[in-house]
């Protein structure tokens, strides 16, 4: 197993190079002059040119990229063009907020989706199934920012139970953003659970279990669900990684100090160093999470473990 994990981590290095080069080059080729975006209309052409020279923008792409990557491997992810803050420090100070929110959202997703999906599958085609499936579909169709704003309207402004935004109020701050994220995730996960369970419910080995005298609840939860978990975990795992950079909408609505906004701001402000650094950090984080999910597979399904270890 360790060999497998080490192999996966080793693959990260070329991956980081690939991603960082693509992002760096793309941002460089993107229309617009980053230096002009930075200084606005405050400088004459000569001053602008001088600034460009100072910031090293006149060197060829490869040189700049090389300089940047050298810094990265020494642990220096560069400084933001706007305000000169250290990129790595910024990212690390905001990461816990994103992780905590993502963690809570996934927890809610699991709590909602798996029971709902299992019930929908077991009571396939009954009215419970119809309600669960329809609700899941609606949840998937509701735009995140709209849901977030509606929740805010109801719980913050009307009822005054929860704070409107920010992460200051302890657990209360987490509730609305986590719910907003969880609704979309849970909808997809419910559908996945349901269909994966349906695949299993007809399986022969369940018949064997029943013939042994196992009660129905155990048949569903211990035998069927465990076999149905692989696709479910895949979906939930990827939802978790998407939230690292993709919770931008929720972060915007609730002014959540996470890392999603950082990347967006960097890209829009043409801050090449910061954007590439955030891309690298997100890549590493995502890859590690996916690795953890893959390792989890091995503990659920011994056939997969056999694949990894070659037994």
């Amino acid at each position: 197993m360790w060999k497998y994990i080490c192999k996966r981590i080793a693959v990260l290095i070329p991956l980081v190079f690939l991603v960082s080069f693509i992002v760096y080059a793309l941002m460089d080729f993107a229309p617009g002059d980053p230096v002009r975006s930075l200084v606005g209309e405050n400088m004459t052409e000569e001053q602008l040119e001088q600034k460009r020279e100072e910031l090293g923008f006149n060197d060829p792409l490869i040189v700049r990229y090389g300089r940047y990557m050298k810094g990265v491997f020494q642990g220096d992810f560069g400084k933001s063009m706007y305000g000169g803050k250290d990129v790595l420090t910024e990212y690390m100070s905001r990461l816990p907020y994103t992780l905590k929110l993502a963690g809570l959202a996934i927890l809610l997703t699991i709590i909602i989706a798996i029971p709902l999906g299992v019930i929908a599958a077991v009571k396939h085609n009954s009215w419970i199934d119809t309600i669960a499936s329809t609700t899941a579909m609606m949840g998937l169709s509701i735009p995140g920012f709209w849901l977030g704003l509606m929740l805010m309207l109801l719980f913050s402004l009307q009822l005054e139970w929860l704070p409107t935004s920010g992460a200051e109020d302890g657990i209360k701050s987490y509730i609305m953003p986590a719910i907003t994220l969880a609704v979309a995730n849970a909808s997809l996960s419910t559908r996945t659970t349901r269909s994966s369970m349906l695949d299993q419910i007809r399986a022969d080995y369940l018949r064997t279990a029943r013939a042994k005298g196992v009660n129905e609840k155990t048949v569903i939860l211990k035998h069927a669900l465990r076999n149905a978990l692989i696709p479910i975990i895949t979906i939930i795992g990827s939802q978790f990684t998407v939230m690292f950079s993709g919770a931008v909408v929720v972060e915007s609505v609730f002014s959540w100090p996470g890392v999603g906004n950082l990347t967006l701001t960097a890209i829009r402000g043409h801050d090449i160093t910061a954007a590439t650094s955030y891309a690298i950090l997100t890549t590493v984080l995502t890859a590690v999470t996916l690795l953890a999910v893959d390792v989890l597979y091995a503990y659920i399904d011994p056939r997969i473990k056999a694949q990894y270890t070659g037994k």
Partner: protein
Amino acid sequence: MKKLLAILLCACMILSLAACGGKEEEAPAPEDTKTPEEAVQSGEAKIAETLVIGYDNDLDSADPYGSTSSQCAWYTNATFRTLVKSDYDTGELVGVLAESWNDVNGDATIWELKLLEGVKFHDGSTLDAEDVKFTWEYAKDAANVVKPIASADDMVKEVIAVDDQTVQFVLNYAIPDFISYLEIKIYSKDAFDSMDPAEAGLIGCGPYKVGELVSGVSYALERFDDYYEGTEQFPTKTIVCKAFSDNNSAVAALQAGEISYCFRLPAASYRTLDSDSKVNLVTRPGVMSYYIGINHRKAVWQDVDMRLALAKAINRDDIINVVFEGGITASRSDNFCIASGKGHDASVKAPAYDVDGAKALLEKCGKVGQEVKIMATASAGSKDMGEVVQANLNAAGFNATIDLVDGTNWTELKKTGDYDIFVGDYCSYSGALLYNFNRFFSDGGTSNMFDFHSDEFMEAIDKVRACATYDEMVAEFSNLQVWVAENVPLIPVAVNTAFAGARTNVGGIKLAPSDNLQEVCYLYATE
């Protein structure tokens, strides 16, 4: 049966969700209460130690020369002090750290300033002439972004610290209103000698010093008790600004009472906040100028008659009504020099709305049906204005189309884009008389992105500069305004109305015309 159930369920959900969205807050009529100022005076209310305000951006730098952002500007308005200040209401130039100044040789080539004594910086050091000299040279040469005086680097030959309290600026040529360029925030040289530049750049002599900065969450100001003027005017000990990602969240937070004051609010929130009994709205004329820029690289627009045709075709009142809610969030502007700008001549008016006149000009030039590509960004105000202008132009015989572009490359696009006109805005505040006219219309002006060139203009502006006294400059400036109005290098449209929202228990509100001029140091809230 199953299908019917599913449809019924969907219908129920949709209806209940739609019902949710329609809630309007009915604010009850307020009772007669004292204003915060009265309450404090009568001793009824205490002042809160901490005040929470909101802004829709995180603080990128607490170093006044570390960023051009407006949040950096207003934050450092509280932590730093400048040599002189131009009162944005009266237009008067007052000394701040500079007690007095004089024209040494009488020919406006050397200006000497006397500095106040006993001004303390946050690190304990005292203000002296070396600090001023250091600031000028550091800010000029350092690898940072903002220059103390844009487009005016070549003005100063050298800065001399004559003695502790006296500093001289030796100019390359005579500039009668040079002092008005000295609204620059002063560093402490001692701080830079003893600390890391990243930290030293945060040390100023303002009434507040840098407080707790939590990235992405909030940035705070702590009162500096050794402030040279004393701290009576600054009742709040700690001012915390919450960083929002979106100014609609700030509106929600203001309504919920999570922040007490916010001066950057979306225009659309005006009505909502107006009807909220717990929030007071403060308004004043702003300095955000909206205009229609013209691409002078294209031959057709180098003909002044065609520009006049454009100007006559555009109906400012239409724009005010549609884009600015009938005049609530902006008022019309008929002069490139805005009403509250230095040297504004109220008699000067840009060409009035005259559709027939526009049509006639088009026929005269033989350009009926002239194509006009309007460049605007997708943001609401820009797009809306573009659409009104398009309608106006089409009604006058032009053939106008709109091109929506991404705002991130706006500056670059103004320089290189293939457009005929664009919807523009700029902050027109300046203490210096010619600042805006110079940067927009002079050859090589930093804001002259549309390559306007006119020898006549250059002569006219030089005439202003050549005046011996400030009053003469103002008189000559009127002529410049007339020239600009008649020759239409661009079309001024409107000036915004700045507004801020404050909870009813907030006092000390001093609303400045633009974000970067705000002074939050006087604010307080009663408990």
